[in-house]
């Protein structure tokens, strides 16, 4: 009886999926559960929402949230713009360009940050080559260095998404419209933009969600105030012994939920009737 069950294709599929799915569910679910638990159970106390209340009333949280949102927004918009420029410039070239862009993907953010500081800090190499930089880019209040690092890392990723979308019959449609009287700018508006709009929007939302969780890059070269949400959480752990961990957990939970909600939004937009 169990033999037949085991041979049923559906069961076999689930059995194959189980190890990975269970592991992720356990670990990720555990992380979320752990965060919730810590946020309502400050050290040595009973369950309480006090941490949450004081967190949500803390003005520093507002500053951190605003700074994080701003950084994420600017990084995403710039990365998207650069990605579109790259995609338009190289879509005709062969696959070697895509391979080069793909090389940027596995480079650690921290490594990029290290090189960024080397170049962009006061006294850094860029200053020596170009003369004094008009703006501070490291440890500046605006967090521009952070933005640059994220743009450097995420623009190639977005460009790859766009180039993938431009692979399916894009060249053919573009040619057809040219051979029917559409000028270059008309083709950009009527063929190119509809093709890249979908992946650009979805990809940008994903980048935005990711930069919301910015941690080591601002730690390495961002301003000490305001911190990003993740930094705020980290600082909390080094602060008040009793409520620190709790506050940190609550902050991180907020950030995580925001990121996940944004991703859901991205998926909804991707399934929009405006074509798949």
């Amino acid at each position: 009886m169990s033999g037949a069950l085991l041979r049923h294709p559906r069961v076999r599929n689930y059995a194959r999926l189980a190890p990975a799915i269970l592991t992720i569910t356990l670990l990720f679910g555990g992380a979320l559960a752990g965060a919730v638990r810590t946020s309502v159970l400050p050290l040595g106390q009973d369950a309480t929402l006090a941490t949450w209340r004081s967190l949500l009333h803390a003005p520093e949280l507002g500053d951190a949230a605003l700074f994080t949102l701003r950084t994420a927004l600017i990084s995403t918009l710039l990365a998207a713009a650069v990605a579109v420029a790259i995609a338009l410039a190289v879509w005709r070239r062969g696959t070697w360009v895509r391979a080069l862009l793909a090389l940027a993907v596995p480079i650690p953010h921290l490594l990029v940050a290290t090189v960024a500081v080397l170049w962009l800090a006061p006294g850094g190499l860029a200053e020596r080559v170009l003369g004094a930089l008009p703006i501070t880019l490291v440890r500046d209040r605006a967090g521009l260095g952070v933005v640059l690092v994220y743009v450097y890392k995420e623009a190639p990723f977005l460009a790859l998404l766009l180039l993938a979308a431009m692979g399916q019959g894009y060249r053919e449609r573009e040619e057809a419209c040219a051979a029917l009287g559409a000028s270059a700018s008309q083709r950009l508006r009527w063929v190119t933009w509809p093709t890249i709009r979908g992946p650009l929007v979805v990809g940008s939302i994903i980048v935005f969600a990711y930069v919301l969780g910015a941690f080591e890059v601002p730690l390495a070269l961002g301003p000490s105030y305001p911190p990003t949400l993740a930094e705020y959480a980290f600082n909390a752990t080094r602060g008040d012994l009793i409520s620190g961990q709790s506050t940190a957990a609550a902050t991180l939970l907020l950030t995580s939920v925001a990121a996940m909600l944004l991703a859901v939004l991205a998926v909804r937009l991707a399934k929009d009737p405006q074509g798949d």
Partner: protein
Amino acid sequence: MTAAGLNCVDIAASPGGSPVLRGLSLQIVAGGRTSLVGPSAAGKTTLLRVIAGLQPIDEGRILVNAVAIDHLPPHRRGIAMVFQEPRLLGHLNVLDNVALPLRAAGMPRAARRAIAAERLAEVGLGGLAQRRVQGLSGGEQQRVSLARALSADPALLLLDEPLAALDPNRRGELRRLICDLQEQRRLTTLTVTHDRSEAAELGQRIALMLEGRIVQHDEPRALFERPVSAAVARFFGVANLLGDRGGTLAIRPEHVRLDPLATDRRGVVLEAVYAGDHVRVIIDCDGRRIHAHVAPGAAPRVGEQTGVEFPPEHVWRLPSTSAAAEEATPT
């Protein structure tokens, strides 16, 4: 001579580095309809792309209605092209796809939609204006493509194997549609096709391209029955090329007569293969292989002796040039 609708003069082009078109010249009278045929990779599509401006030329000139266009970008050449795939825009409905060339020309929305609706009706798809292109069949999509090209009101219409992706039943309808629309408008048209018999229907004249040049451009009968060279002959199915003192003689298999009683030329039947509406017979005649297509009822059997006759009205002597003589092989 009447003004040429299309005049290609000595075109050389080498997409991808190696020369594909060499010294190619082609003329189509204004309002004329020509089919372009040739072996695959001969450069037919390249020629179309070069005329459309999608590929640059190394040398030569292209004139449409006596106006040089070879230095103009594709969208300013006054041409319209239909490809093997429909290449429609998925985010627009059928009507807006057809209206695209008019939109490119700056026509306001209401006007262009009205004209597009007319074109759509002309290709028989009047009721599909509001549909999404994804839901249409291949044949319907290709008709939309055709309507779109017509709404561009071009001076020259280019079609690159427009029927190749359709299933055979649909091809006939679309073929007739293309011919009808072309004749109504007197639109200079150049169609690439790899199908010899389709070429005869799609073109008032057929141009054969071999090795990057046009070797013969004539009415269909001429290419089938009066080819200018052995290469042309072979392409159009003239399987019998016989060298004699004066040059080369050509005769189509359909015109070879087998008479068991004839005495002039006799041979032994090597092969007799039933092919549906005829039997393909190969006869060994003094060491030469003669191909004949015979009605199934009258076909001889393998091993039989039979007489082979070449009715003089169907024998064609290839024009004598040294090239023609070299290419003919006494088989």
